[in-house]
Structures are given as structure tokens and as C-alpha cells.
């Protein structure tokens, strides 16, 4: 299908997609850099272009709770947040996932205090990784649009029914402009369908939501989340394929790969950094260096098997992280390493901290990472410890 291409701010691209998906209820609480999305949606609602219940909340905690209640009442529900706001929502999102409420949430990635900052990194959504919510990380404004169009179908699938976070780097994706192809609202609405809840708060069939459980069933409810995330894998693959067939765009399903087939070094990353790596890989390939890229698109469900398969026989994997588990290192790297445990092919997996707290990651930094990684065979080369890119060692003297 042919769309209309325009220079759009990333936040506007998201708002365009959300509008066309027609959520019944939108709840908002402002936090930089998520605000432009909700401001756009507010205008769509007040101008009559979008017929959603638009609810201002008194905090992110309440915003998440409002969409929670709406979803339990059988409504399609959407909210957005960032950084501290996501941390404040943490408790709600745990309960939302376990109660199997398919809310879609845009997480505009921003670092966590202190010191307080508005710089982007992935620490905020990483704090939600164990909630049971799905996480899709996008690399461009176009993908932000595409992923939001796909999101409700995935979350609301009767075999999935989980909250879904579309994660996009603050500023780089939320406030920058680039050409985005937007499709007609009718086509998007048709693709997104409507939410048919398997159960809801309804006087005609009164159900008890949020009941008290003991040791006899609590673990079973946690295990049910494992099963649902496995189902989500299939669903994400089928929905992204269907989207590709109709709209011609494909940004990857669980992962996306670039030049991995014969690669001797594969870089693994998430978010906007992926686009930078893609450009650097092309330049390095032109120089004859066998470098490849794996974009981790779904951090939850985690595509461990897909990553292993895409790595093939590559001897060296460099994982770039924008989040830190203090005292163990980059979170993505830890999960990639865990995935390789027991695998017959055991590449060297090197963790890099790149872009934490908004530290610059450009093509030069990516090439430096490739250079450092290629020295791993040397005696002085990196072995196991995280390499912190751009860290000012003078700071600690």
C-alpha cells in the first residue's frame, strides 16, 4: 500500500499511529521527553479527529492505573511515559501483566536519577524487564510508527494478553525529524482491528479481579506469563509479516540482521544506536572488514535462540549496552551470554557500555568498538570485563 511521506517529528509519528489505532482510553501524565506524544493526542481528541476518552492523571502511577482500569473494563487503552515515570509505574505494570491487561505504552527512554538528567539511555525500561510486559525497541521514527500500528494486535491477542512497551530513545527518536511514511487512517484502523476481551468487568457476568492467592497457585500465575511471552514470539512474527505484506515495511520481528552471514565480528544492540551501527557496518564492509549487526527488537520476549542462529559461526560478538546492572555489567550483554550457555558454538562475547547516560555513540565510537573487539585475541586485549566507551578516567583521580 502506498502511504504519504512527510518530514515528521518522531513523537508525531507515534501519535499518528496511535490515533489510527483508535484507543478507547488514553491517560496522560507529562514527563520529558514523552510530552510531545500526549500533546499531539490531546489536540487530536479536542479537535474531534480522535474519539478517545482522554484522562489527565495526577501522576504516572495514576496514569498507569487509569489505563489498567479501562483495560479491565474491556477498553483498548494507551499511555506513555519515560524515565522516573516508568519507575513510578513499575508496581502497576507488574500487576497489569499478571492480570493480563493488554495496555500499550510508549516508553520514551531516558536515564534515571541521580543526578537528574533528561539524557537518553535504557535504564528506565530495563527496570520493567521482569514485570511480564512485552518490550519492543525501535531504531527509527518510521519503525516507531510501524511498531505502534502493530502493537495493539500483538498485546490484545487472546493467547498473549500482556501489556506492551514500545521503547524509543528520548530526543534521538522522540524529538528529531526525518521522513516518515504514514498510511491512511482507515487502512491502519482495519489492520489494528478492535479489542475483543476474553473477560471484563461486566455486571452481566460479575467477575472478581485482583483476587488474593496463596502458594497453591501463585507460581502458576507467574509461569502463565512465561507461556504468554512464548506465544507473543509467534504473534510478533506473524503480525510483522502481515504488516510487511500489506504496507511493505519490515523492521525485523524479534530481531533484525545486517551483514551477519559471513561476519567475523557481530555487534548486538537495541534502539536508535542500531541505525548508527548499520551505517558504520556499511563503511567497514567497504573497507573489507567482515562486520555484521544484530538488532534486538524484542527485549521481551528475549530472542535468545534467534540471536544464536543469526550469529552462526561468528567467533566474536560485541554487545553494546545502554543500561547497567551495577556490579554485573550491561544487561543486554548478560542476557546474550546467558542465551549462549550450553550452545555448541561458543563465540567470545564482549560487553561494551556505550551510550549510558546519553554519552555520545557515533560511527567513530562504533569503529573503535570493532577495533577493540578485534584485539580480543591479543594478550592485552579485552577478555570478559565490560569496556566503558568514553568513560572519563580522570573523573576518579
Amino acid at each position, binding site marked *: 500500500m502506498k502511504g504519504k511521506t512527510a518530514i515528521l517529528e518522531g513523537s508525531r509519528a507515534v501519535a499518528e499511529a496511535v490515533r489510527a489505532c483508535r484507543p478507547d482510553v488514553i491517560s496522560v501524565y507529562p514527563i520529558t521527553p514523552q510530552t510531545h506524544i500526549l500533546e499531539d493526542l490531546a489536540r487530536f481528541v479536542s479537535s474531534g479527529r480522535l474519539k478517545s476518552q482522554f484522562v489527565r492523571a495526577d501522576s504516572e502511577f495514576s496514569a498507569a492505573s487509569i489505563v489498567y482500569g479501562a483495560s479491565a473494563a474491556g477498553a483498548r487503552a494507551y499511555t506513555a511515559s519515560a524515565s522516573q515515570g516508568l519507575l513510578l509505574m513499575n508496581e502497576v505494570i507488574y500487576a497489569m501483566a*499478571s*492480570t*493480563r*491487561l493488554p495496555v500499550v505504552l510508549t516508553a520514551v527512554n531516558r536515564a534515571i536519577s541521580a543526578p537528574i538528567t533528561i539524557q537518553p539511555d535504557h535504564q528506565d525500561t530495563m527496570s520493567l524487564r521482569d514485570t511480564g510486559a512485552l518490550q519492543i525497541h525501535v531504531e527509527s521514527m518510521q519503525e516507531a510508527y510501524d511498531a505502534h500500528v502493530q502493537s495493539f494486535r500483538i498485546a490484545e491477542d487472546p493467547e498473549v*494478553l500482556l501489556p506492551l512497551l514500545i521503547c524509543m530513545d528520548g530526543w534521538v527518536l522522540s524529538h528529531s525529524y526525518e521522513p516518515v511514511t504514514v498510511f491512511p487512517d482507515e487502512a491502519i484502523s482495519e489492520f489494528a482491528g478492535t479489542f475483543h476481551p*476474553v*473477560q471484563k468487568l461486566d455486571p452481566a457476568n*460479575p*467477575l*472478581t*479481579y*485482583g*483476587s488474593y*492467592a496463596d502458594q497453591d*497457585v501463585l507460581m502458576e*500465575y507467574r509461569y*502463565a506469563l512465561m507461556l504468554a511471552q512464548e506465544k507473543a514470539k509467534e504473534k510478533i512474527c506473524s503480525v510483522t509479516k502481515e504488516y510487511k505484506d500489506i504496507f511493505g515495511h519490515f523492521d525485523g520481528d524479534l530481531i533484525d540482521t545486517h551483514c551477519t552471514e559471513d561476519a567475523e565480528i557481530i555487534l548486538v544492540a537495541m534502539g536508535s544506536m542500531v541505525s548508527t551501527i548499520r551505517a558504520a557496518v556499511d563503511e567497514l564492509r567497504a573497507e573489507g572488514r567482515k562486520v555484521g549487526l544484530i538488532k534486538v527488537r524484542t527485549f521481551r520476549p528475549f530472542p535468545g535462540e534467534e540471536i544464536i542462529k543469526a550469529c552462526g559461526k561468528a567467533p566474536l560478538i560485541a554487545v553494546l549496552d545502554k543500561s547497567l546492572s551495577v556490579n554485573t555489567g550491561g544487561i543486554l550483554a548478560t542476557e546474550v551470554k546467558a542465551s549462549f550457555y550450553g550452545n555448541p558454538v561458543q563465540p567470545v562475547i564482549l560487553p561494551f557500555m556505550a551510550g549510558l547516560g546519553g554519552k555520545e555513540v557515533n560511527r567513530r565510537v562504533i569503529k573503535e568498538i570493532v577495533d577493540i573487539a578485534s584485539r580480543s585475541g591479543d594478550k592485552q586485549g579485552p577478555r570478559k570485563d565490560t569496556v566503558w566507551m568514553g568513560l572519563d578516567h580522570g573523573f576518579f583521580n
Partner: protein
Amino acid sequence: MDLLLGGVCKAGESKRLETGKWRSFRPVVDRNRCIKCGKCADLCPDSCMEIKEDGAEVNLYYCKGCLICMRECPVKAITKEVEEK
């Protein structure tokens, strides 16, 4: 699996729980005194009092023996007895 998705459960399943087992005292209604005003039924936290033709009747399956009915009865038609177990 008799449970619904997401910790959701069906309405009114508490009714199979015999909370009458908790009781130490049981209320006893003197039907000759009972004026069928329904106060005990309104005030019973466990909905154990039913006003029948000839007066209030205690549902001992649920009655926890709090004796609010005895205390609040305007004509003192309810007394207590030690529950024999």
C-alpha cells in the same frame, strides 16, 4: 483448570466456605419474642439472619457467633449459648 486468566475468579464462591466453624457462641432466637423487625438481618456482617413467617432464623452454616444480633435486638429475643463442638 477451574481458574480464569490473570487471577480473575468467579463471583460468590465464598458461599461454600463454612464460616460457622469459627463460632464459640451461637445465637438462639426466642420466636415468641421476635417481632420480625429485621434489624438483626440488616446488621449481621455475615448475612446469617433470615426473617421467616414465625421469626428470625439463624443460618448456622455461616454464623461466626459475633452476637451483634443479640446486642442489637430491640426486644431481647436473642440469647447466646456456648457452642458444643
